[in-house]
C-alpha cells in the first residue's frame, strides 16, 4: 500500500475544543420566532388581516435597516442571526393593529439603528430595542398608539375601536371589564401580540422547555404582579388573574424581560430584575397616570441591569459554596 503521509504544516492548528454545539445565535433567535407564532396567530384571529401586513412591514423594515446600516458602515452582515427579525415582530406585537404602517417602520428604525446598531449591534445595546421603540412611538404618536381596534368578538356596525381592559380599569368602569376567560383567551382590545395570554403562555413555556430562556424572570415578574394585585384589591384572586392577563404582562415577561443582552447575567440578578419589573408595572397601573406600565418597567430595569449585575456577581463556586 502506498503511504500517504507528510501532511506537515498543511494541517489546521487551532485551540481546543475541536467540536462545538450545533446551536448558534440563528437557531436561538429562530426558536424565539417560533415561540411568537401562537401569539401572532391569535393576533391575526382577533384583529384580522391587517396584523399580517403590519408584522411583515415591521420585520422587513427592521431587517432592512440592519442590512443597510451594516452596508453603509462597512460592517459584516448580521441579519442572518435573525435578531432583527425578532425585534421587528416584537414591535408589531407592541402596537395597535390600526397603527399606520409608516409609524411601525419608524419604530423599526429607532429600534434597530438608534438603540441597537449605534451602540455596536447585537449584544451591545443596553436597553431592549423593541421596548424602546414602543415607548418612542407611544410618546410621539400618543393618539394612534392608544386607538384600540375592537376584537372581532366585540366589533359591531357602530363601533370599530374601544378601550382596553386596563383603560376601563383606570377609568373606574369596572362593571364593563371583560371576563377573565375572555382576557385569558385574548378576545379583548390591546396591542397586536399581547392580547392572548394563552398563546403567549404556550410560546413562553416552549422557550423554557427549549432552554432558550430561564424561567426565573417570567416567574418573578408575573408572580410579583399577581401578589401585588391580589393584595391591592383586597385579596381578590379575580383581580390578580385579571392583571396577569391584562396589557403586556405576559408578552413582556416571557419575550422582552428575558432578552439576554439587557437583563442580568446570574439567577439572583434575574430574580431581582423580575421582581423589579412586577413592582414598577403595578405601581404604574395602580398609581400612575398611564393605564399600562409593562414597557416602562422593563426599560427602567434594563437601565438598572449593570448595577444588579455588580451586586449579584458570584466569583467562584467549587460545589455548593459560593465565594463573594
Amino acid at each position: 500500500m502506498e503511504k500517504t503521509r507528510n501532511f506537515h504544516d498543511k494541517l489546521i492548528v487551532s485551540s481546543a475544543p475541536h467540536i462545538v454545539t450545533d446551536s448558534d445565535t440563528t437557531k436561538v433567535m429562530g426558536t424565539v420566532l417560533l415561540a411568537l407564532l401562537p401569539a401572532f396567530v391569535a393576533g391575526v384571529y382577533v384583529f384580522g388581516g391587517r396584523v399580517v401586513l403590519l408584522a411583515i412591514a415591521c420585520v422587513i423594515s427592521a431587517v432592512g435597516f440592519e442590512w443597510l446600516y451594516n452596508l453603509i458602515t462597512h460592517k459584516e452582515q448580521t441579519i442572518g442571526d435573525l435578531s432583527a427579525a425578532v425585534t421587528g415582530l416584537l414591535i408589531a406585537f407592541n402596537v395597535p393593529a390600526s397603527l399606520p404602517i409608516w409609524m411601525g417602520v419608524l419604530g423599526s428604525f429607532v429600534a434597530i439603528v438608534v438603540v441597537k446598531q449605534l451602540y455596536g449591534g447585537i449584544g451591545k445595546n443596553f436597553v431592549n430595542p423593541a421596548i424602546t421603540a414602543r415607548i418612542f412611538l407611544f410618546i410621539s404618536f400618543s393618539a394612534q398608539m392608544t386607538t384600540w381596534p375592537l376584537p372581532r368578538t366585540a366589533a359591531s356596525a357602530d363601533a370599530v375601536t374601544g378601550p382596553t381592559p386596563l383603560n376601563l380599569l383606570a377609568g373606574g368602569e369596572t362593571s364593563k371589564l371583560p371576563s377573565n376567560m375572555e382576557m385569558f383567551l385574548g378576545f379583548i382590545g390591546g396591542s397586536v401580540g399581547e392580547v392572548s395570554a394563552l398563546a403567549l403562555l404556550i410560546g413562553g413555556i416552549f422557550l423554557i422547555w427549549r432552554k432558550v430562556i430561564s424561567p426565573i424572570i417570567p416567574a418573578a415578574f408575573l408572580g410579583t404582579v399577581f401578589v401585588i394585585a391580589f393584595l391591592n384589591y383586597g385579596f381578590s384572586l379575580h383581580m390578580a388573574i385579571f392583571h396577569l392577563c391584562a396589557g403586556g404582562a405576559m408578552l413582556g415577561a416571557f419575550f422582552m424581560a428575558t432578552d439576554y443582552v439587557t437583563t442580568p447575567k446570574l439567577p439572583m440578578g434575574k430574580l431581582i430584575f423580575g421582581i423589579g419589573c412586577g413592582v414598577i408595572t403595578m405601581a404604574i397601573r395602580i398609581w400612575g397616570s398611564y393605564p399600562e406600565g409593562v414597557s416602562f418597567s422593563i426599560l427602567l430595569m434594563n437601565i438598572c441591569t449593570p448595577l444588579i449585575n455588580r451586586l449579584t456577581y458570584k466569583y467562584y463556586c467549587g460545589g455548593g459554596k459560593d465565594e463573594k
Partner: protein
Amino acid sequence: MSQGKHLPSILVPHHKNTAGRETEVMPIPDVVRISMSQSIGAPCKPLVQKGDYVKVGQKIGDSDAFISAPVHSSVSGTVKDIVPFRGSMGGTETHIVIETDKEQAVSEEVKIPEINSFDDFIKAVRASGMVGLGGASFPTYVKLSPKNLDECDTLIVNGAECEPFITADNRMMVEQGQDVLDGVKIIMEHLDLKKGYIGIEENKPDAIANLNRLIEQEGLTNVETFKLQSRYPKGAERVLVYEVTGKVMDAGVLPAQLGIILDNVTTVAELGRYFRTGMPLVRKRVTVDGDAVNDPKNVFAPIGAQIADIVDFCGGYKAEPKKIVMGGPMMGRATNSDESPIMKNTGSLLIFGQEAAQVKEETACINCQRCHSACPFGLMPQIFAEAYERRDVDRLNKFRVMQCMGCGSCSFICPARRPLAMTNTLAKGLVKEAMKK
C-alpha cells in the same frame, strides 16, 4: 457510595464508535521518534548517542530534576539521529529517532522490581517511567509520595473517559481488568490506603461489569466501582474528587492535600503490569477515529510511533486530513504534522477532514451566559474574555480566572462560537505574567 451532588456539566455527543472493538497490535514501524519531553516536568537528557543499538525497555533518557520521569525505548534498533522537533505542545522537543530492526529484543535492564520498602516502591514507580496517562503527564512517583502520606486514606482511579471518541481506557478496563485491580492493590498496599474507588461513566457498562466481576472474584471489600454521569467533564480531576467525595478541590490544590490519591485508570493498570513483568511503559493503547480515517479502531502502538504509520495501520486516510488532534476533541491538541509521534499520554488520534476541521466563524456575544451555566465551577468566561481584551488583571483575579481548568465546556456550548477556553488560557497566562513582576 454516592454523595449525590453534582457539579454543572454538559452533554457532549459521545461518538464512542470504537468501544466494541478489540484492540489490535500494530506492526513495528520502520522508524520511531521518541520524545524527551513526555512528562509535565523537566525534559530528559538523551542517554544514548547516534549509532547506538538499543533494545525494548532500555532507558534512553532521564533527568535529575525532582519532577521528571525516565523515557525508555519502545523498540530494538539503531539510533539514527537525535534532533529537535516542533512538538504539539508548541515548544521544541528533542527526539531520539530510532531505525527499528523489528526483532523487539528485550533489554537486560528489564526485570521485575524487588520491593522491600516504601522507598523501593517509589523508586520502582519512577523507573517504570509512569506519568499521568489521562493527559496531564504528571510523574506518577511524585503523586504517590505526597508529604502528608499518613493523612491519605482514599484511592480514586479515574476511568471516567468523558472525552468524546476515546475508548482506549474503556477497552483497557475490558481487556486488562486484572491489571487495573493489580495496580489498585499495589498502590493501596504500599500507601496504606483504606478505600479505593474506580470512577467510570455509566456509558461503559462492559467495563463496569468486568471490574465488578473481578472485584467480587478476588473478594476485595475495600474497592468498588463508582458510576459517574455520562456527562462532560466528569473525568476532570477536580470534578471527579467532588463527585466521589463531595470535597471541593480548588485549583493548585493536590488531591493528596484532601487525603486522596488520584490516578488515571490506565496509569494504574500499567503500574500493575509493570510490577508483574518489569517492562516499563513502552506501548500505548490509542483510539484512532475521525471522519478522515478509513478504519477507526483501538491500536497498541509503540510509544514514538508516528501518526502517519498508525493511520496506515488503520486503513490510511479516507480523505485529505485537515486537522489531527492528539487527545480528545475537548482538550486535545491539534498537531501540525502527521510525522508527530505518539507520547505516553496520547490516548487518541482524531483525524478530521475538511468539514470537521473547520473552525466555525465567531459572532458577537449575546450574553446568554451558557458559558457560565456550563462551567463546573460557576466561573464567568464571558467576563474573562472582556477583561482579557482590556488586559485587566485585577478583574481577572477578582473573578478567579486561575480556577479555570481549561475543560473547554464554555467554548463548546457558546452559540456565538467564541473561543472562550482559549481566552481563558491566555488570561491565565496574563495573570501569571503579572504575578511574576
